[in-house]
């Protein structure tokens, strides 16, 4: 079975003080084992909501999400780990203790989880920063600690909601390269949300473009270029132009809806 996540007919409407907000409508999508799937779409189209539903954080109004054939009705790190745009490190814990958090919840003994956390800080380039507290780390470092904290759970699926959205361009590019290495070595399935076409092209094995709110799936691209990707290659620039065509339309609509 190649499909690890099966999303069928998922919809979600938020009830707010100013009336119902339809965020997602009839999403049908499958995610393959070990692929790098990216969700692209205008702001507010429900990307975060969709990730939340896949991760068991948000209950859909209609439809189901099945992971390996099973429904998830609450977050389960044995299946899925999440990374958010805001790293959300616990300020009272050192980098190492932050990485340990998930294992601590699972009752892993102290020496064992410490060793596991230590091993994770090395590939994320934070060896020697174990004892530092979040306030002493740069934005990129914080996000790497947050990713290490998610990786510590050893979940087969990693959901990432604009993880590099708050970083500067250079850091962002380097983090992308770094993430591809992690992806290659950990063999996890990644579902990634970004606003950056460039990031999507460099990273993804498939790209999903969503419509303006309520989000639907508008188009699906297989990206068959070999890694590491060359953004100046002809295929890459063509893909970029194509993606931009779709995104432009939807973003315009999203903007007009807001004005």
């Amino acid at each position, binding site marked *: 079975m190649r499909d690890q996540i099966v999303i069928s007919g998922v919809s979600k409407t938020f009830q707010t003080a100013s009336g119902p907000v339809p965020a997602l409508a009839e999403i049908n999508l499958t995610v393959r084992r070990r692929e790098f799937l990216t969700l692209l779409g205008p702001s507010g189209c429900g990307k975060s909501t969709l990730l939340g539903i896949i*991760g068991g954080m948000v209950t859909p109004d209609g439809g189901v999400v099945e992971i390996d054939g099973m429904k998830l009705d609450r*977050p*389960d790190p044995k299946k899925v780990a*999440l990374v*958010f745009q805001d790293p*959300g490190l616990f300020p*009272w814990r050192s980098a190492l203790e932050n990485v340990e958090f*998930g294992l601590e*919840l699972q009752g892993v003994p102290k020496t064992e989880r410490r060793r596991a956390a230590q091993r994770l800080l090395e590939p994320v380039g934070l060896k020697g920063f174990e004892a530092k507290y979040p306030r002493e780390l740069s934005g990129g470092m914080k996000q790497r600690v947050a990713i290490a904290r998610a990786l510590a759970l050893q979940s087969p699926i990693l959901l990432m909601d604009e993880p590099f959205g708050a970083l500067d361009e250079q850091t962002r590019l380097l983090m992308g390269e770094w993430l591809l290495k992690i992806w290659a070595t950990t063999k996890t399935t990644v579902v990634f949300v970004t606003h950056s076409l460039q990031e999507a092209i460099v990273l993804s094995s498939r790209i999903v473009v969503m419509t303006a709110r309520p989000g639907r799936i508008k188009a699906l691209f297989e990206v068959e270029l070999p890694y590491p990707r060359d953004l100046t290659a002809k295929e890459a620039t063509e893909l970029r132009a194509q993606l931009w065509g779709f995104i432009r339309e939807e973003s315009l609509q999203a903007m007009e809806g807001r004005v």
Partner: protein
Amino acid sequence: MKIFFWRGVILVGLFGAWEILARQLNPVLYVPPSAAWPAVLRIARLEAFPEFPTHVVVTLWEILVAFALAIVTGLGLGFVLGLRRFLGEVYEPILSSLYAIPSVVWYPSLMLFFGLGPASKMAFGFLLGFFPIVLAVLAGIRQVDPHLITVARSMGARPFPLFWKVVLPAMIATLLAGVRAGLALSVVGVIVGEILGSREGLGSLVNYAYGLFRTPDYVALVFAIAIMVFAIDGAAGMIEARARRWSG
């Protein structure tokens, strides 16, 4: 070291100024340190008040009970109201406005309820200590970053670990500050209660000495109370430091 030096300088300066000033004034009402010191010794030798240790024990006991009650109910009510958003929104304004009323107005009714004995002092100490604690818990819970809760939940944290490992450490500084303020106010409540009417405790001795114009004894008692308060506060500070270390 430098800090201790300057503290010493300030202390000596204050006592010096006090000595000089008090010597110019009516000695019955204004006691210079040189006259207070023998009175302190007389208390220490149990000459001034033979029952002095008993009174200290009574006061400490009242403070302990008052503060323990303030902690238990303050934390309990605070967390119930704070973690149930709706209840919190209903009750917090009521608590805040009650806190704004000068607490001494409650004391006569407490005396009526609980009599002249230790119970009314405990009740007053409790009342004063309770408010800062409950309000600190409510403020502390409000300042917990909801994103941290989301993150912990996404890693599978269930309500109980969520509370111990995220909510509590995230609010610990505010909570401890409130508990310490509550302790200080519990002490104030007990001693004021004793001064306003009682037969035992340090406050009753203050009242007695003052009433008989034994002003040096009165001043010496104030010193004794100050020393006791420093000791209590020092112990509280040590416990607070430990709690902080626990939360990292």
